[in-house]
């Protein structure tokens, strides 16, 4: 598959702050690429530089091998994290207005169906719920039949139903052949939607690859979790990690039976033990730390 998007050595300095520090990655055509990171990691700045709405201190962005320019603007669809729409304008008028700005135009009825906006067409933008508004913003990002779509934390603030509804939408867009660049700090979202991810922190990319590949590299085996309160003895002979703030201990193991045998003398209630596969949240927390960010 060709490379749809490539960011090369992107750097962004603000006075006293390096927001993006030499970030490079590439996105193959047709995949959903997730840019993950805690708040303030530099995800949004990186993506806005790629989108062309923020200027970089240095670095270049390539779209299908060319410096991102007019063709990129015509073929990219963007859903920003925070976008206000005009007041007193209806959903239909908003979609039509943005559609007119492009020479590549999607069929308006298809977008309306795809984003389930049929019943909201005559509603004022101000009167939309959070989920409805996100669907409209996605519809606006689709008005030009985009080959590449940017979704910047699209489900922040949505309730669980609305989030899952949005995931279905994203999957249907990807199935139709568009390339997606998704930024999120929800690991479950990334796990469900992304074929490849890059984890950012402090303006740098810490790691990148497919979720399975990264988890395989980071963790050998399964994770045994037990509450600290159930611990009755010393675990010094067993390799483990203590998460005081969560009240749990994690043991990563390739041999669950042997580990359970070693643990059982030191645990008061074995029923509280959980065994699970490592997930992106584990990887994310291990790479970016467990402490709260300012």
């Amino acid at each position: 598959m060709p490379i749809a998007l490539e960011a090369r050595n992107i750097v962004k300095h603000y006075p006293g702050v390096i927001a993006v520090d030499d970030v490079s990655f590439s996105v193959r055509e047709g995949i959903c690429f997730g840019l993950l990171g805690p708040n303030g990691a530099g995800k949004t700045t990186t993506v806005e530089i790629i989108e062309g709405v923020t200027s970089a201190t240095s670095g270049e962005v390539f779209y299908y091998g060319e410096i991102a320019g007019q063709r990129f603007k015509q073929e990219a669809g963007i859903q920003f994290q925070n976008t206000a729409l005009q007041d007193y304008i209806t959903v239909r008028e908003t979609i039509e207005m943005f559609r007119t700005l492009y020479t590549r135009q999607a069929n308006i009825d298809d977008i309306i169906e795809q984003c389930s906006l049929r019943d909201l067409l005559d509603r004022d933008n101000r009167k939309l719920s959070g989920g409805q508004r996100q669907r409209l913003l996605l519809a606006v990002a689709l008005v030009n039949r985009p080959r590449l779509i940017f979704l910047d934390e699209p489900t922040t603030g949505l309730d669980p139903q609305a989030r899952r509804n949005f995931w279905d939408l994203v999957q249907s867009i990807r199935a139709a052949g568009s390339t997606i660049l998704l930024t999120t700090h929800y690991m479950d979202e990334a796990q469900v939607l992304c074929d490849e991810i890059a984890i950012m922190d402090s303006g740098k990319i810490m790691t990148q690859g497919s979720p399975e590949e990264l988890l395989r590299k980071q963790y050998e085996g399964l994770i045994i979790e037990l509450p600290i309160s159930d611990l009755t003895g010393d675990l010094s002979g067993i390799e483990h990690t203590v998460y005081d703030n969560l009240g749990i201990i994690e043991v990563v193991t390739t041999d669950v039976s042997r580990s359970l045998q070693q643990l059982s003398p030191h645990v008061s209630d074995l029923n509280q033990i959980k065994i699970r596969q490592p997930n992106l949240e584990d990887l994310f927390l291990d790479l970016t730390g467990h402490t709260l960010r300012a």
Partner: protein
Amino acid sequence: MWNRIYAIFQARNREFLRDRASLSWNLILPIALMFGLSFAFSNDRDAYTVGILQSAEEIMVDDHPFLETQYINFVAYDDLDTAMRKVARHQLDLLVEFGDGARYWINPESPKGYFAEIALLQSESTVALNIEKQQISGDAVGYADWLLPGILGMNMMFSCLFGVGYVVVRYRKNGFLKRLRATPLTPIEFIAAQVASRMVLILMISTFIYTGTHLLLDTRMEGSYFTLFLIAIVGAISLVSLGLVVSARVTSEELAGGLLNLINWPMMMLSGVWFSLEGAPEAVRTAANVFPLTHILDAARAVMLDGATLADVSPALIALTIMSAIFLALGARIFRWGPM
């Protein structure tokens, strides 16, 4: 390009026209001001007021020739102290007592008192003046006639500066401009759409206000409506362009409001919205020429009150066109979609 400009133009028009509160305010305030001020100044502003000291409430015109003088309001007073206090405060131009031992009181610092005194003394004169008298007929230019261009210009100024400047800053602050930047829309297309939208809206509003006041107050219109319309178009473009310069980079509505007021207030005071600058010092009149509104009002008043032709007002139109070109070029040059 034209499709994109039209899309932004149409959306902005819808946004404005559906905001009923703002629209009503834009229509009602100027008309209310016109009616209020016209009513307040509807009495003959140059009439003199002379007190007649007498015990009777009714003034008998036959008592003295002076009482037949036109354009003087005669008011009877029976209390000398009260009437003298009014003379001292210029509330009465003159106080007269007829009859035996006739006398009058005047404040020597009152200009109107000076002329009222001449009228009083002349009324008793029997000397014929050897000066030929010729009559010129014509209706007086009422305050409403003079005020209407000012009110239209002021409304245009507020609507153009705040309606564009403030809105662009709001769009920038809430991220709508950033969203537009991610599309193929260019700054010049966005600016052109804003100028066109506000121009159409202000012309609609001004036409409504003009028609309403003209029909109800029978204001004067000596010149051509086409010339007046042309002045309105060129004037609106210059004011919108000025608003765009102010809002080109600002991200705070408070700062934008301050900057716009910094322009609005001197322009409103010095451009002749409320009063004529004919008697003002030369330096003030020269300084007033930097404001687009001065040229708009001078040209509009010349057309409406004196029947000036397109050729007569062409210097004002040229000045406005040059200002618009400078403001638009500067606005497009320094315009930013997002915060710096």
